[in-house]
């Protein structure tokens, strides 16, 4: 296995890496952002590395972003999605992955609907694992790119107030963001309907708001999340319309504040539910910057994990 330049050989979650790791990733991402803005957006750094993207769950942004990051680093890329594969024929996860690894793959980017899949894989196979989202657990690269986008806007995290809005209970982005921002020194709060706020959040030192207006008055950055209907087995909210009315962020609400709050969203946006179109497309929002930064941050993560390999 390759020796990583980070404190861990894998990126399983923000919880497991140090503040120094995060800072190193953000700093390295600066260099890659310059690379992806060149006329030829490619460097040969990982030309001897093969990376498998194993997506056992649907994804658009993350998958494209990882693939682009890998290609811009000149790595060989292998794409796998569970639909149309032998997983449907009853093959176990470990068998599938081991089969892929026996074709000499160095790194694995994995997304799975079950929390802990990347961690399980890291214990059983000999490759660097990058978690691209596991169930409702963590989505570390999203948190890193969110932190990178915030850093670009504010330069520092000290004393910065960031509030995460929406479906906190079913969101892996929320948990990774909380760990990441707290490690960097920001103050984090969440806001949403009580049914969608998990109970343990107090232990993490996270402030909880149940009213959007109060939360917006408190924060400098609003990271708005999607209602994850696909992960909800019972009804947590009466209706989407009611949610939009009480927890959606709309123009009048933002105009009633004395300051300008930066709006973020990890996508995909349900326009008119958690975020109105005129807010999502306004100059206050840095949603598209987040997507651009995603490639640079993922390049940095892959570069640092690739580290040095004993020849």
């Amino acid at each position, binding site marked *: 296995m*390759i020796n990583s*330049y980070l404190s861990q050989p894998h990126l399983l979650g923000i919880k497991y890496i140090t503040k120094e790791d995060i800072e190193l990733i953000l700093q*390295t991402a*600066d*260099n890659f952002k*310059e*690379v992806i803005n*060149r*006329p*030829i957006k*490619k*460097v*040969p*750094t990982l030309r*001897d*590395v093969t990376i498998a993207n194993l997506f056992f769950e649907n994804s658009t942004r993350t998958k494209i972003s990882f693939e682009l990051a890998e290609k811009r680093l000149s790595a060989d890329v292998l794409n796998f999605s569970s639909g149309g594969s032998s997983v449907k024929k009853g093959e176990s996860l470990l068998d599938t992955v081991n089969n892929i690894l026996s074709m000499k793959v160095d790194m694995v980017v994995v997304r799975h609907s079950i929390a802990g899949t990347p961690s399980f894989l890291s214990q059983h196979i000999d490759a660097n694992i990058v978690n691209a989202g596991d169930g409702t657990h963590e989505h570390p690269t999203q948190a890193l790119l969110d932190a990178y986008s915030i850093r670009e806007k504010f330069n520092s995290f000290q004393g910065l107030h960031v509030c995460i809005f929406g479906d906190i209970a079913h969101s892996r982005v929320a948990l990774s963001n909380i760990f990441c921002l707290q490690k960097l020194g920001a103050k984090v709060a969440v806001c949403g309907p009580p049914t969608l706020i998990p109970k343990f959040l107090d232990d993490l030192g996270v402030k909880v708001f149940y009213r959007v207006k109060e939360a917006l008055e408190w924060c400098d950055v609003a990271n708005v999340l999607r209602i994850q209907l696909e992960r909800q087995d019972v009804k947590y909210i009466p209706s989407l319309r009611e949610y939009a009315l009480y927890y959606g962020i709309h123009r009048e609400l933002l105009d009633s504040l004395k300051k300008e709050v930066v709006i973020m969203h990890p996508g995909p946006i349900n326009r008119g539910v958690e975020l109105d179109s005129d807010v999502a497309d306004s100059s206050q929002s840095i949603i598209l910057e987040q997507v651009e930064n995603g490639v640079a941050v993922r390049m940095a993560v892959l570069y*640092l994990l*690739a*580290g*040095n*390999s004993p*020849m």
Partner: protein
Amino acid sequence: MSPVRFGLTLRRLKEQLIEDFGENEEVCLIGIQPRGTILMKHILQLIDTEKVKFKIFEGHLDITFYRDDFRRREKMLMPDYNKMDFLIEGRDVVLIDDVLYTGRTIQAALNALQHYGRPATIKLMTLIDRRFNRHLPIQCDYKGMEVDAVDNAYVQVNWGAAKDHQVLLFDSKPEK
């Protein structure tokens, strides 16, 4: 190298540049980050004081992502900033570095330059040429001085204030 000699060498390198490119319309001077850029800045300071007719494009090239020893070293390769806000397509390029040793850095720089267009010519300027330590068939066109040392020796150029520049020769690479 005495401070007087150091100053003279820098002047000679500058004169050679002017001699070769004085009649051109433009030339791209590209310093290899971080130490080549320092030499380039010193040369540029000397050029600015005279009236030269050609236009100079100044580039700072970081070659970290192009190195052939990535993943073969214990220590992390930390990239430096890269500033190349022009294309080298059809232009004359002078690559600048402080010490030419194995030639691998220059090879990486040549690879990196491909991403900015197809230059008319590329020449190489280095302050120190360790001519017996090359791993690759790379030679420099403008050299400040030659240092003949064993493979393990380490040559370091220290840029001090105005006249305190130094070239140091160590038996082995010093610990930082």
